[in-house]
């Protein structure tokens, strides 16, 4: 599958990718490791479309990471996440946008606008230059759009050698 931003003036959501929101009821779960549901959305011309749901009992983070990898998820948006789980996710090739709060629709809309930073959890706002594992972003820009482009670039790179 070739994934990458399509040319044209139609905006960032023309990128096809699978994103996951770690949820509790209709909001992002407070903690990724105990999120009871993972919701998958396919992005594209029509904006995000629900592609599936996974109900997971609380358990080993490694099982959650494996489930995400097995489903082909490229980007994860979640609430709080432990440093070790975050490293595991990143090492599995997933782009992670943690420490986000808000309702599912609100989060998707903010992602579409590239404004996820506006939904940062308390204590994660205005903390530039924080190190790895800290709730601040890792220099990937303002969230959303930047992440999509990075994901697309990574995915494209993966296909270069094929």
């Amino acid at each position, binding site marked *: 599958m070739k994934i990458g931003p399509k040319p044209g003036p139609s905006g960032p959501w023309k990128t096809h990718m699978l994103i996951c929101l770690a949820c509790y009821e209709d909001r992002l779960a407070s903690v990724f490791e105990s999120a009871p549901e993972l919701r998958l959305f396919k992005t594209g011309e029509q904006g995000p479309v629900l592609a599936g749901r996974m109900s997971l009992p609380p358990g080993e983070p490694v099982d959650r990471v494996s489930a995400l990898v097995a489903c082909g998820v490229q980007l994860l948006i979640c609430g709080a996440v432990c*440093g*070790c789980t975050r490293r595991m996710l990143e*090492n599995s090739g997933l782009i992670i946008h943690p420490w986000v709060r808000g309702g599912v629709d609100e989060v998707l809309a903010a992602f579409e606008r590239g404004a996820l930073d506006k939904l940062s959890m308390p204590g*994660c706002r205005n903390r530039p230059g924080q190190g790895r594992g800290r709730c601040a972003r890792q220099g990937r820009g303002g969230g959303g759009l930047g992440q999509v482009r990075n994901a697309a670039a990574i995915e494209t790179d993966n296909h270069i050698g094929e």
Partner: protein
Amino acid sequence: MSFPKDLPCEAVLGSIADGVFTVDLEWNITFFNEAASRITGLPHDEALGSKCWDVLHSSLCDGQCALRKCMEGGESLAGKSIFIVRPDGAKVPVSISAAPLLDRQGRLLGGVETFRDLTDIHLMRRKVKDLYCFEDIVGKSQALRKIFQILPQISRSEATVLLLGESGTGKELFARAIHHLSNRKSGPFMAVNCGALPDTLLESELFGYVKGAFTDAKQNRPGRFQAAAGGTVFLDEIGDLPGNLQVKLLRVLQERSFEPLGSVKSVPTDVRIIAATNRDLDGLVAEGRFRQDLFYRLNVVTLRLPTLRERREDIPLLSDHFIQSMAAEQGKEIEGLSEDAMSLLMRHDFPGNVRELENILEYAFILCPGGFIQVEHFPERLQPQAEDREELSESGLSLEQIKCRAVARALRRNKGARMATCRELGVSKDTLRRMIERCPELGE
């Protein structure tokens, strides 16, 4: 002397060493003391007005909120052990208490939660546990110590490892330990049970497939050998691997490459393989059901894991470990095993090994209301018959034998500490030494 009436409530709550916060009926934080800021790593100003779940990030916030239960049920809750995640990604163990907040007319205003940082207590516990723990493996027996000694060197090498051992001996636990101690620890660890999947599914699971390989293959899908690049693949029940996949696996081991299902193009792979089985691989090779060349490729480093029967001295330690974990998980106050219950476990053969011990204790945990687990809390198959019960009691024993048995039990309870045993039995250390010398069952 009476309590001053005009004392500001905030000043009192602010001076408490435990974290305290209050919420209104909409779950907005209305008070957040200094200790709460210190423990959660969140400034007071940012916490105020935020939803409590966006501030505390606890393991209960997503569906098991203690505060909600208290506010809905009108009751208080105390001493529940959970963890919170700080903004720096650190997981902090805390003990929480929660209660509803009512006005003078008894109307619900919100809730209050206090939490105590348990990090220091956990560190102390871990230090004690570390003496007899290696990665997540618990044991102090000679058989395990030998493995613990060589495991770091084996892990650091890139050699393929074959783990042999009965079911329930912890083969996956050892495989994970090898991965965590290896240079590949930051890579993925992927476990595949070769006996659990049908042949075709196992092939696509391990090697992946390309679009069009079969009717439903609508897009390329990487297999475990590709997804685990830079990490470790654990192949459990390798003895059940079908013949055609044995050939493919042999190629992975020899040439570090494979062809996904439906592809003619070789894909390189960079994984370390750890295989495990509870079957007699030598026998399978002799019967022609397992390829000899694959067996020799896998058999670079072989670790035979001891059964629980071979390391009975680990039963008390393992029981303590499981009981502590279950108590923390379920919030049940179980002190440990009664003497009779421990004695019964020490005499059991454990065909299912450590997994069986864990299951027995899990069953007992359900039936035991609190305090010590008794024999009657064990599953029916473990319940001693009438004559066995008599044997367990002291009847028919001489006074000397009863004394010896009392000393043996007290030593076991005190984990071999003689001074503690003396204090418990109310005897001098010389008396204890003489008893130990006299009693054949004490082995000195």
